[in-house]
């Protein structure tokens, strides 16, 4: 036995490193449709088993099966497919812009598009989102202008954040999308506070927040769960388990020992575990949790089981720490492919239509990127005025900042 007190310190290791054969055999995948759907008013103690299960709706043939089938209209499904595809095209374009030096940094959500897009669809347009950095799909499914997003990425003269934030750290009150923080997990307890405020104000809106498997180890997430449970806040706590936190596999966040959904049990909160690449399942669990929250039945925690198919960010090279073909071997497939297959199975879509959609969106993104670039890119140095640097530190500028602005000569 390696892991004993008197035989050394146990340090977790993933099943495969670069050069090894990918091994996902440890992942148990129950058949689609096999998990029961409880009433939203269920007592959390009656659904503890759901933390260890995996809610799935789409089967191998692209059919939607079982109680969690949200029975979305074909139009809604196409809307979801479009938003996911647009997200992927947008990501690819921005990634290329970074490679071209037009911006310094970018983060993709490839393989995880269903998370933000399906959840964004299941939430109301004014439910307040406290995302981390891989939920650009929320903005996209809410039809937030991608031009606006690009201007932020380019930190140009139309950047609504005045060049103050790293690319992709979007923020829009109108979009009900909270300012992304560089500091992991801080948004989770903030979301609970927002939800508490909404409850206090007898407001129908609810809050939702996202945190990564890695970041869930931060104390803030524990505080979010505790406060959410104590005050029964109308909030959805989403944990996106995409298997990796930069170079660290989910075993370093505790994933070797149990599911992340099981965290909910310690707080008496319902915990759902869902196939994060199954658009329908993600939609359904989110709608269930939103209904609970809106009915005043309290918080829900959702583990979205997915896979980070791309690099962590443009600063990262995953081939250094995981097998190059790991993404391709991910047993739960690709969320866009799977929803497309479902729509085709329904007779509501075709490969040709998908191709046409991709072309249309590529053209749209390219055109929009050109427009965004016309307002400047970082390398061109067409940035917001340096004088703005001293604004918004406080509501009113105190003397010392006025003096410093003078000193800066701007």
């Amino acid at each position, binding site marked *: 036995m390696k892991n004993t007190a008197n035989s050394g310190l146990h340090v977790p290791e993933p099943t495969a490193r670069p050069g090894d054969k990918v091994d996902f055999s440890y992942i148990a995948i129950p058949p689609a449709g096999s998990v029961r759907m409880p009433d939203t008013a269920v007592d959390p103690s009656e659904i503890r088993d759901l933390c260890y299960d995996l809610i799935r709706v789409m089967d191998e043939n692209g059919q939607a099966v079982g109680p969690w089938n949200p029975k979305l209209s074909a139009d809604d499904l196409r809307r979801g497919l479009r938003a996911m595809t647009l997200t992927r095209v947008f990501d690819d374009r921005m990634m290329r812009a970074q490679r071209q030096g037009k911006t310094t940094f970018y983060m993709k959500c490839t393989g995880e598009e269903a998370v933000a897009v399906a959840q964004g669809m299941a939430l109301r347009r004014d439910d307040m989102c406290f995302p981390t950095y891989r939920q650009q799909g929320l903005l996209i499914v809410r039809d937030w202008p991608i031009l606006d997003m690009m201007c932020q990425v380019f930190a140009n003269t139309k950047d*609504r954040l*005045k060049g103050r934030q790293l690319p992709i750290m979007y*923020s829009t009150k109108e979009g009900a999308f909270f300012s992304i923080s560089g500091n992991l997990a801080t948004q989770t307890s903030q979301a609970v*506070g927002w939800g508490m405020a909404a409850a206090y104000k007898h407001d129908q809106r609810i809050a939702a927040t996202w945190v990564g498997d890695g970041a869930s180890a931060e104390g803030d997430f524990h505080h*979010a769960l505790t*406060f959410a449970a104590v005050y029964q806040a109308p909030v959805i706590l989403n944990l996106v388990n995409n298997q990796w936190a930069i170079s660290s596999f989910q075993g370093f966040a505790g994933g070797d020992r149990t599911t992340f959904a099981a965290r909910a049990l310690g707080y008496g909160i319902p915990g759902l575990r869902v196939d994060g690449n199954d658009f329908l399942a993600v939609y359904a669990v989110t709608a269930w949790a939103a209904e609970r929250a809106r009915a005043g039945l309290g918080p829900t925690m959702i583990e979205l089981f997915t896979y980070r198919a791309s690099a962590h960010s443009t600063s990262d090279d995953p081939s250094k720490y995981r097998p190059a073909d790991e993404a391709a071997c991910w047993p739960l497939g690709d969320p866009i492919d799977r929803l497309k297959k479902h729509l085709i199975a329904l007779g509501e879509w075709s490969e040709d239509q998908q191709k046409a959609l991709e072309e249309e969106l590529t053209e749209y993104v390219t055109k929009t990127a050109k427009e965004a670039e016309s307002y400047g890119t970082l390398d061109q140095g067409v940035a917001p005025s340096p004088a703005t640097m001293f604004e918004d530190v406080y509501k009113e500028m105190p003397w010392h900042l006025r003096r410093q602005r003078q000193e800066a000569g701007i």
Partner: protein
Amino acid sequence: MPAMNMIQAVNSAMDIMLARDNDIVIFGEDVGYFGGVFRATEGLQKKYGLDRTFDTPIAEAGILGVAVGMGAYGLRPVVEIQFADYIYPALDQLVSEAARLRYRSAGEFTSPLTVRVPCGGGIFGGQTHSQSPESLFTHVCGLKTVIPSNPYDAKGLLISAIEDDDPVIFFEPKRLYNGPFDGHHDRPSGIWANHPLGEVPADYYKIPLGKANIVREGKDVTILSYGTMVHVAQCATEETGIDAEVIDLRTLLPLDIDTIVESVKKTGRCVIVHEATRTSGFGAELSALVQENCFYHLEAPIERVTGWDTPYPYSLEWHYFPGPDRVGAALKRVMEG
């Protein structure tokens, strides 16, 4: 005007604000039913309801995180951190979140929080119930830092803090809760009822943030201080007979630089007094600013009288606390300089 001690003054400020503005909620460890370990929120839950003044889990970072979220919603949370010594777990939510939210969202989301924090020693609280960490917060742009020295100021400043649209850290020197304290721990302590600044209007009033108060005019030397040390400084002035101008800064950030500079230019000498440890304490910033702004007027080195650079030692606290003797000695040195 009614006589109030500092607890009552702070309580009165919150009472008035709860009545005036339904967006104000108060929470923290033990602040609800019980009314706080220092009783600052006594009676407020009963008067305004369970959802206006309530207890929280013991998680300072959680309290602040939740407050930031509430602030983003549009409420005005007033939270209590039970002792300044326990604010460190919440630092990330303060520094990285509350302080920068307005900036990073280009003004769309704000953090109109007030964080009440009992601070300071002199109550045999040992190393974890005696600290004065104010200097850390003054290094964080986006935060305001306030420390009153008497009931009248406490109420007026707290109302201003609550109404302020930026996050304010409001330190309450707990040694002053019941009465003014001049550092003579071996004598009976005074009570606020006998002090002019213990007379506190029952109604709403404000003292603006960023305005210092000259508590004693003088021409020989300027003493810059705040909180408990204002009383120690006044005592040292009387005991040495040196005609010091004693300035109670009240707000550390934004600082009332004009009042400071004017005074030091007049006196040509400056002594800075605070209870916090010396190195990188707020006295360092004050010394730097005075030097930068009054260099050609200074007739002697600026002196700092502060807590030592050690933890606050429980049984030796009166050797640690910068009392009137130490301040007096500094005044004399400066007058000779």
